[in-house]
């Protein structure tokens, strides 16, 4: 464990060094990210000009969901995007060879080698949104609520990572599979809104089959002092199960790796 933490720290360090070498790129993408988030906040401001609540959720509570959504953007686009995008590219070009001969857990290497700091402003703005929303709603979470919320956020991140990585393993069967890395992040549109917004069949799917809408709702409910233990248990189960499955599936998938000519 210590070795992997040290390696991850090295990966982050090198990513910082690279980001500083291309600071114009960092600045521009940070501004673009912030711009998109501001637009989203404006959208919800407009929405709640006309209603007081949606499915029992008030504006501050929905803004909390937005705050956690923004913070998860760092996980998606900062910690995972470059790595996930790299998997089919490495398979297509044969540069996966370099990674697979290293004496280290290859799933770890493929998943976490690159870190993009362009999305750090997302996380910071997300945190500010959470604080603003708590103030707006005059909500004072308990220390236990905050701790459980952080725990749920981490579990949600594990679930997102595992689901995304499992999807990317499909690329080992194909010489080229452009855009596969867009599929899983596309699902984040569903966790922009609270889980109770969904009804009927969709609600069932997002609870028991693909609980992506729980990744923001569960941490927020802890902050609101309304712990949803069933949803938390479902999210935790799916996070652990998907993580284990991703490991098994990866080891199965690389048997189909056929490399590429130099």
């Amino acid at each position: 464990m210590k070795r992997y933490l040290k390696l991850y720290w090295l990966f982050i360090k090198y990513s910082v060094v690279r980001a500083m070498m291309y600071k114009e790129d960092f600045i521009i993408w940070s501004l673009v990210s912030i711009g998109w988030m501001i637009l989203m906040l404006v959208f919800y401001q407009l929405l709640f000009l006309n209603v007081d609540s949606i499915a029992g959720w008030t504006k501050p509570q929905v803004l909390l969901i937005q705050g956690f959504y923004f913070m998860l953007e760092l996980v998606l686009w900062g910690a995972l995007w470059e790595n996930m995008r790299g998997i089919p590219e490495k398979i297509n070009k044969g540069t996966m060879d370099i990674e697979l001969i290293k004496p280290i857990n290859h799933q770890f290497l493929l998943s976490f080698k690159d870190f993009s700091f362009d999305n750090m402003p997302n996380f910071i703005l997300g945190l500010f949104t959470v604080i603003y929303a708590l103030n707006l709603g005059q909500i004072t979470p308990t220390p236990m609520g905050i701790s459980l919320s952080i725990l749920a956020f981490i579990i949600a991140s594990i679930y997102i990572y595992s689901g995304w990585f499992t999807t990317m393993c499909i690329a080992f069967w194909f010489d080229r599979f452009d855009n596969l890395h867009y599929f899983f992040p596309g699902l984040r549109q569903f966790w922009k809104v609270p889980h109770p917004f969904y009804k009927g069949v969709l609600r069932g799917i997002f609870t028991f089959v693909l609980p992506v809408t729980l990744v923001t709702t569960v941490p927020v409910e802890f902050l609101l002092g309304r712990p949803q233990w069933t949803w938390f248990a479902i999210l935790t189960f799916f996070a652990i199960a998907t993580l284990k499955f991703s490991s098994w599936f990866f080891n199965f998938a690389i048997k189909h790796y056929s490399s590429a000519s130099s």
Partner: protein
Amino acid sequence: MSIIKVKNLKKYYKVHEKEPGLKGSIKSLFSRKYKEVKAVNNISFEVKEGELVGFIGPNGAGKTTTLKCLSGLLYPTSGTVEVLGFTPWDRKAAFQKQFSLVMGQKNQLWWDLPPIETFILNKEIYEIPDNQYQKILKKLVKLLDVQKILNIQVRKLSLGQRMKCELIAALIHNPKVLFLDEPTIGLDVVMQKTVRDFIKDYNKQFKSTILLTSHYMGDVKKLAKRVIIIDSGTLLFDGNLQDVIDRFARNKIISLVFSKEINQRELAEFGDVREYQYPKARINVPRNQAAKKASDLLDKFPVADLVIEEPPIEAIIREVFTGKMKSSKKR
């Protein structure tokens, strides 16, 4: 003791054959034609500890596929491989810490960072103790003379400089087995010599087992006493480089210097005239008749000097690859 054991190794691929043009592309969406490519077809060989073996063959012969099976990158269709007592495709960390694969056209150096950062990263990945790392790094940097470029971004280095640093990155963990796939490809003649000299010194100093693939006969001639020749996935020869000449060379070359002008047509009666520019000439003669032909030439023509030579190894290998001669395999 054999450190690499390959037995009846086969690697077959199923590749999609597409007809050319747009019509072919649309047709392939609904019905695909596949053909089987036998990249490696039942090869067997063993390599002893400390050996430096040249693995040669034309493009598409199966050299790189073989190396990738030995590295554990590919699962074979059938056959067994044992390297350092491990089955490579089990990808055990204990095995991966003891070998290295250098591919001339695939880079492990981080593009935006100086090479030293990749070395540090590899130190952590391979769990190399600090003092061992410093010792090896110092030795390799000195052997390759790269002290001045260690802290320069990789993307700013020349191809030759990058290749040297790639070699260091691949050897920093002092592997017992080294697979080199076209290590001098694309390098200028000076850099080719540098890399060859380094490989030879490394093999000598560290007693590592090296399997080297190359198109350049210069690499093989300089480095390897033993060669394995592979073509179309099949092992054609495994033995000493000198034995390649003895086994496959059909001709010898007689080089002549004449003291007077001669009739070139008369010269052609003795053999295949490869070159004639008075006063010099070179003719190919059947190997078993070389001595008699030389004697006849001395009788018939005003010869000032005569030398009987073996054909260049490159020409022999070329004839092997083009199928002009086939021979059975092993030593």
